């Protein structure tokens, strides 16, 4: 098999265009891989070794840096008038709650609203549909301060439920994808359910939602990755719930008591922490590579 591939490779002539793009691609991919591989190897070495011989990638390997992440990357939170140390595990859990809950909320809300506007032809659906299209193409700048004020006024500031409610929105690009999907699903499915004694809830929860599951799973994964990597929103809206992303950010700018070891923060444990934050996403990516990188517009129902 591999030999046939190699033969085909040799047989097919490379065009100048293909060759030029290939060279650009090789340069780009090498830059990305070199960066990640160097960082990964350095995260297993001692600081001194990395600084003195940065390219001796297999020298002085140790697991110590990863253990230090659990011991020394700490911050504190206020509990009952006092302070409590927050370790990396809790920050990791905070990331999971923020990203998992937010992704689930946004994906479900978007799917529900897209289903309603695609399948229930009334004035409200039309208004909602065109509102999404307009708001998506109309850039509004600088409403972050107002958002902070409103979330504080509603008691949604600095708590996970608040952050999930903030994410329970539908004016995002995935609305259009869900909408296109539901438009393709024949309403006959619903009619036969009604004949069998089902109601609108049965149609949605027993028929439509299971049909949409692959798309929901993909959108959930994409949202999850986005929120896991987002540190600015929790930094602004969840100040007492340090996420792993915020911890990394604080370690870059050297602020806010995220490192309880000797100062300044050594290079290698910081790299180890960065890889630990990247690891869950990397595993997800490896497991669901085809789903994440597949065509979102594919997989509709064939009429």
């Amino acid at each position: 098999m591999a030999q046939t591939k190699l033969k085909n490779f040799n047989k097919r002539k490379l065009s100048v265009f293909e060759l030029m793009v290939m060279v650009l691609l090789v340069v780009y991919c090498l830059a990305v891989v070199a960066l990640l591989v160097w960082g990964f190897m350095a995260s297993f070495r001692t600081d001194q070794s990395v600084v003195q011989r940065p390219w001796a990638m297999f020298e002085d390997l140790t697991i110590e840096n990863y253990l230090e992440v659990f011991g020394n990357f700490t911050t504190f939170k206020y509990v009952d008038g006092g302070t409590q140390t927050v370790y990396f595990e809790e920050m990791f859990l905070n990331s999971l709650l923020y990203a998992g809950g937010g992704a689930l909320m946004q994906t479900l809300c978007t799917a529900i609203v897209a289903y309603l506007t695609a399948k229930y032809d009334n004035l409200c659906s039309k208004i909602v549909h065109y509102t999404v299209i307009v708001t998506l193409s109309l850039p509004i700048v600088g409403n972050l301060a107002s958002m902070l004020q409103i979330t504080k006024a509603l008691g949604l500031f600095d708590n996970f439920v608040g952050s999930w409610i903030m994410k329970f929105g539908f004016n995002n690009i995935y609305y259009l994808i869900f909408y296109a999907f539901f438009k393709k699903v024949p309403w006959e499915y619903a009619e036969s359910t009604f004949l069998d004694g089902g109601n609108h809830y049965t149609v949605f929860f027993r028929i439509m939602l299971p049909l949409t599951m692959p798309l929901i799973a993909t959108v959930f994964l994409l949202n999850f990755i986005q929120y896991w990597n987002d540190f600015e929103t929790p930094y602004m809206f969840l100040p007492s719930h340090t996420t792993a992303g915020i911890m990394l950010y604080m370690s870059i700018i050297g602020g806010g008591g995220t490192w309880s070891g000797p100062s300044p923060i050594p290079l290698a444990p910081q790299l180890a922490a960065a890889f630990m934050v990247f690891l869950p996403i990397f595993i997800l990516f490896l497991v669901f590579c085809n789903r994440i990188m597949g065509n979102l517009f594919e997989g509709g129902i064939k009429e």
Partner: protein
Amino acid sequence: MTGQKLNAASAVKKKMSKKRGMLFYVTMIAFPLLQFVLFYVIVNFNSVLMAFQNYDNSTGKEVITFSWDNIAYFFSADVVVDLWLCIKNSLMYLALNIFVVMPISLLFSYYVFKKFHMAKLFKVIMYLPSIVCSTAMVIFYKYYINDALSGLFGGSVIGPIFNAYQQGVIIVFYLLMSFSGNILLYINAMCQTPESVIEAANIDGANEGRIFLNVVVPQIWGTIVSLIVIFFAWLATNQAYLFTFYGFNANREYQTIGYYLFNMIQDGRFTGAALEQNYRKASALGLMLTLIVAPVTILVRNLMLKYGPKED
């Protein structure tokens, strides 16, 4: 008679079904709509109000008055100089997005779309920067430049002190992260190109370059326009990773409008009334920028759709 009864029963059933449908519709859409009203309509309306508010708590009581002061603040000499620097940098990133990132991303996507040599491997590696947390990527990059490649630059480059190399190094990072951003979107759009069109071009003897420019690009023009519109919309929000690299201490020489705006809200040096007033200034700047960027974005979109290449 029986037929009439049946019709009546079916009409009643339909009515019931419609009523139940309405009940289902209302219960399902109520909360999303409420969320939209709270976090889009009210937030933006409040943002406009805040742009004209002055906050004062010097008497121990919160007093809010309305004036043009926040708008006028951005026309004072010192601020204008800073803003002009930010605008220049933001325009530079816009130009980079349109003239460097987009063409190269399109070429990369075409390579993968045509399944040229090792396309699958390239696709996976290209996508990696999109899934790595920007903070983690900044850490890898910072040490890679400062330690692994330091010989090339003669010592540490990325740091708090301004130096000539630093902006170049930040731009390289920006490019590294940006190429992968929209690749899947382009590939998905390219997949909608009918195979027959590409085959016909092949039969006519068109080379890959011509097929790319004259067949594929016109086919995905709608996607290209959408992304250019997004780039224009980003003009006022793009922080170019400065916040991740420097927190609120980025050198003014590198700052973008997006960074400047975000910094006004999160800057830890401001607290209490000063921070409250900063919120209002940021809203004023946001309002002015929206009034500039929104029409420009719509104009660019319409012009590109009108004068861009057509599928036929």
